[in-house]
């Protein structure tokens, strides 16, 4: 029983991390139709901001964490201003290629300017200790991760539902050109969406660093691939779908690790992706996107 609870917590922690990153991807996608593969580099830059903060002598996690979150938001807004705004009216594929280009350029810059080798960021080592709640030994990091992700998602939902800018963003996710005709500045709506996705990436960077204890230039790549899959599962453009997809992926990852005999460990990703492929055959548009009746247009 203890083991099951522990694995359940693991799954929730993984899932919430995927959900956090997927939510950032979905937020930008829902407004701009842009699959921002450079989101991983926003996470990496937030991670390196922590490394640099430690280098210049800021050692307190209470200072380093806000620096990472602010750096995530700032880098996301810079990416939008420098790379994505000029191609905003170009076809979707141009945006996708731009995102991939930004990702490669930033990875190379981090390699050249800092190091291709992993750098230790031991600022959150305290979080890896175990605490006891009744008979259960629980990792402090996992608990904190769950609480912070729940708060971040709750805060985002409150912002989107109850603020004027949030209302504008929600309107823009479905009818962007109409929102502009209502006099709402496209630049402001898009920059806010990028800043929010950057904030979420910064929070994700903190927890990935806390788990790994080090950073390298490809730091954000793998989490973004997972988050991309989470978005596909939940249905692209659906914020709720991104969270649900992330959580499902977390549970799937942990279930496969737990249930798969050790000698088949190499098949972990293959099995996970096969299950996801099966899911998409059943619901090609994802779990939370409304099924569209194509009728004769299918031909």
């Amino acid at each position: 029983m203890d083991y099951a609870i522990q694995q359940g917590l693991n799954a929730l922690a993984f899932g919430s991390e995927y959900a956090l990153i997927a939510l950032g991807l979905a937020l930008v996608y829902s407004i701009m139709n842009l699959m921002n593969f450079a989101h991983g580099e926003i996470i990496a830059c937030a991670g390196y901001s922590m490394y640099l903060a430690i280098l210049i002598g800021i050692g307190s996690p209470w200072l380093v964490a806000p620096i990472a979150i602010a750096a995530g938001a700032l880098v996301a807004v810079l990416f939008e201003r420098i790379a994505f705004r000029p191609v905003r009216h170009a076809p979707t594929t141009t945006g996708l290629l731009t995102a991939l280009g930004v990702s490669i350029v930033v990875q190379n810059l981090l390699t050249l300017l800092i190091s291709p080798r992993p750098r230790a960021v031991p600022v959150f080592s305290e979080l890896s200790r175990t605490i006891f709640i009744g008979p259960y030994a629980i990792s402090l990091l996992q608990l904190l991760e769950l609480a912070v992700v729940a708060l971040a998602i709750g805060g985002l939902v409150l912002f989107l539902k109850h603020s004027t800018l949030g209302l504008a963003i929600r309107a823009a996710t479905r009818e962007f050109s109409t929102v502009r005709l209502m006099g709402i500045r496209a630049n402001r709506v898009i920059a806010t969406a990028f800043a929010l996705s950057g904030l979420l990436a910064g929070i994700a960077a903190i927890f990935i660093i806390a788990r790994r204890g080090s950073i390298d230039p490809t730091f954000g790549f793998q989490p973004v691939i997972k988050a991309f899959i989470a978005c596909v599962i939940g249905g692209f453009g659906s914020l709720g779908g991104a969270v649900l997809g992330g959580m499902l992926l977390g549970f799937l990852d942990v279930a496969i690790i737990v249930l798969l005999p050790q000698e088949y460990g190499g098949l972990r990703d293959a099995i996970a992706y096969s299950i996801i492929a099966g899911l998409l055959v059943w619901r090609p548009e994802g779990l939370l996107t409304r099924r569209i009746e194509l009728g004769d247009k299918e031909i």
Partner: protein
Amino acid sequence: MLSIDNVSKSFMGVRALRGVSFVGAADEILGLIGPNGAGKSTLVNAISGVLKPDSGSIRLGDVDLTGRGPEFAARQGVGRTFQNLRLFPSLTVRQNVEVGLITCRRHRPEVARSIDIDALLDRFGLAADAGRPAGTLPYGQQRRLELARAEALGAKLLLLDEPAAGMNDYETAALADQLRAIRRRSRCALLVIDHDLHFIMSVCDRICVLDMGEVVAIGTPELIRANPKVAEIYLGAAEAAPHQKNIREERQWN
């Protein structure tokens, strides 16, 4: 006051607007008619800032709107509805109207203070559905919601692109009353595009006729009705015998 001065626009060599000029009064309901491809939607897109004209100028009062973009036009008081409905389907009816009010609150707070969302929804018969997602409303109510949202912009000029599309005679008559009421309440000008000539004739103070991107005629409904050029454009009257022409005109206008 809307002032269109010598506006031209071409697409890949096709001249959609050729030196269009006219002036609309501040509280006038001006109809814009013409056959398909006449340039009506291009002109509305140019006024609302979606398209930048190749030449000429568009002014609303003292403000030059030419090529300044849709956000600028909306902030100056240009509101718009669409031929194909463009509501925010996942937002509630009330939130759709609130989106319309955002810009007005920021740029013309004195106008925004006079707009009461509950009263507005009530006037358009939408109060009971205020909390319902807009995408779930029947078509006629969605049309009314688009009008309510446009009124919430506190516009000085409302551009209505085929507001009567898909409506029956009863609904069209009610729409005509609503447009007059919007003009009375908001003291704004309305530029109305529609193919329903009976509706246009009944609701507009003046009518501007476009054909092949040019203004063919502009004047009161009576003048337009009597204009042989307009009849020719609409009915191909050049080939028609005079007695046939009269019959077909009657059928068209009445």
